[in-house]
């Protein structure tokens, strides 16, 4: 057995308190040179806070950080970079209107002449197979390419520790593979990697050690290659995992939602144009739309919900009614409900109470407004029912929407729509930023609604979610939708290629048959 060398990074007793929350409570672990170390935990487990302290964005209230054996304080990100700590953020710190070169120059602390910088960038890209044109404008790049900019930016500083914050959440499976190749190469050259994720199969595939956090506390440090995904998940969540209960042998009824050659021009300089979107969702079917962020998902949600009505009345039909030109309100009257991705400010008004938020979408279907006057009693009753049925943690119907945690607000919004028993429900990113418990509840509610004969469309960037939830799946890329495929027996590799924009034989969507 080797004597273990001095850890590259060692944390002891790190504690960080925010008003009302203990974000990190006496956390400690060590990262060895050349080790790929996973930091695993749910949303809100304190992973981000912890790495922000390592990178100098925040200061711990208590505890010690040791770097190559020396006790240090990292006062700001610049100091961290000087030590040799690089970080790739989950939300990229990029400037869309600038070139790759300008973006990388901004991330450097020293002034490097442009030509020299370009040569260095090309050398690093060559060495790690991170191919990019330094003169491209960032807005024209895919998410995976944008991440490469961040990685190149970090690598130019010859880091000894690279922190990756949820790097794969927006990548296609192929891009994930390419990223892993780069990370393994880096580790083999002695760079330590702190890899933050909640995707267990990735951690099993990539990491040497995993530190698991829950509710700000250290739960365990283990070897992910020995643990099973299930055992790590249970440590992460702190309870047994619930699986989605799907009734076996379901059959689908008549076509409830028909989208036929839906076109919508893009809005704004970087807007995505929807072209010839065609699919159908049947009674009892959960139809998933996969894709990498920024490929037209937002536009599609707006087009389906009625916020961006089409020119063509036939583009969308709900239960035989042509709703293509109708507004969101009119579509709701036809039995079509929708939940957008953004909870605060789009699906709900943060400064309104839950019962007032109920009135916004349920007023017509549930008769909450009569003769121009609000029937606040009906709204309160309905809000109360949603809170009870969906186990929303809130003081009551009078709580402000903005005071709820992300997961609870999402449960409330989903409940508000689901309990109206819509014939067609369109949801975007139903479990984005939601803890696993709430996510499981939301998934189960969607399955149950489908069981009652509704047609459901789920737009999500989380492929795992779609594969476990949906019956049928199509991929959106550059505003075009692939041919739908059965989820049972779907080929992950092929879905990945579609997400990356390689359409093959599935490029041309066929028009739905006339009815």
């Amino acid at each position: 057995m080797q004597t273990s060398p001095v850890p590259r990074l060692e944390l002891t007793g790190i504690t960080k308190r925010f008003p009302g929350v203990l974000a990190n409570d006496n956390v400690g672990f060590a990262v060895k040179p050349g080790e790929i170390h996973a930091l695993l935990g749910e949303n809100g487990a304190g992973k981000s806070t912890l790495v922000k302290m390592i990178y100098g964005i925040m200061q711990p209230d208590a505890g010690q950080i040791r770097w190559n054996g020396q006790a240090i304080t990292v006062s700001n990100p610049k100091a961290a970079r000087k030590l040799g700590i690089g970080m790739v953020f989950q939300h990229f710190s990029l400037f869309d209107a600038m070139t790759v070169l300008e973006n990388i120059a901004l991330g450097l602390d020293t002034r490097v002449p442009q030509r020299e910088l370009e040569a260095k960038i090309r050398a690093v890209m060559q060495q790690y197979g991170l191919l990019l044109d330094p003169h491209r404008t960032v807005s024209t790049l895919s998410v995976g390419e944008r991440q490469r900019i961040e990685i190149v930016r970090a690598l130019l500083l010859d880091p000894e520790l690279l922190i990756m914050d949820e790097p794969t959440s927006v990548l296609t499976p192929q891009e994930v593979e390419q990223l892993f190749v780069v990370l393994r190469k880096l580790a083999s050259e002695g760079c330590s990697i702190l890899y933050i994720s909640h995707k267990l199969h990735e951690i099993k595939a990539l990491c040497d050690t995993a530190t698991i956090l829950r509710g700000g506390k250290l739960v365990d440090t283990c070897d992910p290659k020995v643990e099973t995904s299930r055992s790590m998940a249970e440590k992460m969540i702190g309870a047994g995992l619930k699986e989605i209960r799907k009734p076996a042998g379901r059959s689908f009824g008549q076509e409830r939602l028909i989208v036929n050659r839906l076109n919508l021009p893009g809005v704004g300089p970087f807007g995505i144009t929807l072209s010839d979107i065609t699919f159908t969702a049947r009674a009892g079917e959960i139809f998933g739309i996969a894709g990498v962020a920024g490929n037209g998902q937002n536009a599609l949600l707006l087009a389906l919900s009625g916020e961006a009505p089409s020119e063509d009345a036939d583009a969308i039909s709900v239960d035989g009614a042509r709703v293509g030109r109708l507004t969101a309100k009119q579509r709701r009257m036809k039995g079509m409900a929708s939940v957008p991705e953004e909870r605060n400010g789009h699906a709900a008004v943060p400064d309104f109470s839950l019962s007032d938020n109920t009135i916004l979408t349920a007023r017509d279907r549930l008769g909450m407004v009569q003769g121009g006057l609000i029937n606040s009693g009906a709204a309160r009753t309905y809000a109360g029912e949603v809170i009870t049925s969906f186990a929303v943690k809130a003081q009551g119907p009078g709580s402000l929407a903005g005071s709820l945690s992300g997961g609870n607000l999402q449960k409330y919004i989903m409940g508000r729509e689901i309990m109206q028993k819509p014939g067609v429900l369109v949801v975007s990113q139903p479990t984005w930023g939601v803890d696993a418990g709430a996510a499981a509840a939301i998934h189960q509610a969607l399955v149950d609604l489908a069981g009652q004969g509704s047609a459901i469309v789920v737009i999500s960037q989380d492929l795992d979610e779609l594969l476990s939830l949906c019956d049928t799946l199509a991929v959106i890329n550059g505003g075009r939708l692939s041919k739908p495929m059965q989820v049972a027996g779907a080929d992950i590799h092929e879905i990945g290629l579609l997400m990356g924009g390689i359409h093959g034989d599935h490029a041309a969507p066929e028009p739905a048959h006339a009815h």
Partner: protein
Amino acid sequence: MQMTPEFFILAIVTIVGISTPILLAALGELVVEKAGVLNLGVEGMMLVGAIAGFATTVFTGNPWVGVLAAAAAGATSSLIFGFLTLSLNSNQVATGLALTIFGTGVSSLIGTAFVGRIVPQFGSIFPPELARDPILKVLFGYSPIVYFSIIMVVLVWWFLTSTRAGLILRAVGENDLSAHSIGYSVIGVRYLAVAFGGAMAGIGGAYFSLVITPMWAERMTAGRGWIALALVVFASWRAPRLLVGAYFFGVLVYLELFAKASGLSILPSQFWAAMPYLMTVVVLTLISMRDRIGLNAPACLGKPFLPAT
């Protein structure tokens, strides 16, 4: 009236004179907006600069000192705006409008003591034979501030496109949160930009009280600060286009003066007086209809910087 070469040269000299204060104020505002701050107080800062420059020149007898005082006063008034919007996160539009009202009031108040006074003029920086020559004065017959404004166009353009500091400034205006997470001081950069904008507006104001009419009149900038604001959008945040735009507006204003003086215009002179403002509305409408404008507009323009804790 005869269309002699002298007539055209006189017209050009007048147009350049009209355009210079707009150009100066707009250049300052361009830098401010590139850093992501919308300061609608240009008109107020110009008036503060106008009276500060005038008063200082009255006391010192030196217009150069007056211009420096105008720049300092403009910068100081802009820092009031900066403190409110950058440190206290007040609404930029409302605060900018308040700054204009404040500047108008303060300049009128101080100005009452200076009504009827006259100040010494700038000497020419070229030999008098060149500056007074009826033809050559098209090149040499201007106030030093005019040459300064043109040098500043080049400097601002060079700064924004070719220097690291300019790149950081654009980054702050493009994505303040990213710039912050990389480790740049968003608020610090914005303070500097706002102060520069104030100084440039102040010098633009001083051009009215020291060069155009070397005496004090209330509200003598006559809304040119608003034109400067529109010009920044018109130029889609590019300094060379700002030069073209400022001179174009100068032509429009000149047409009004010409119509009044010659009586040759078919349309009433009030129509020409309204033209620059009408053109501003038309240009802003046309530009906002084109999507491409969005590509060069700073993405964080007018938004307060609120980093997550």
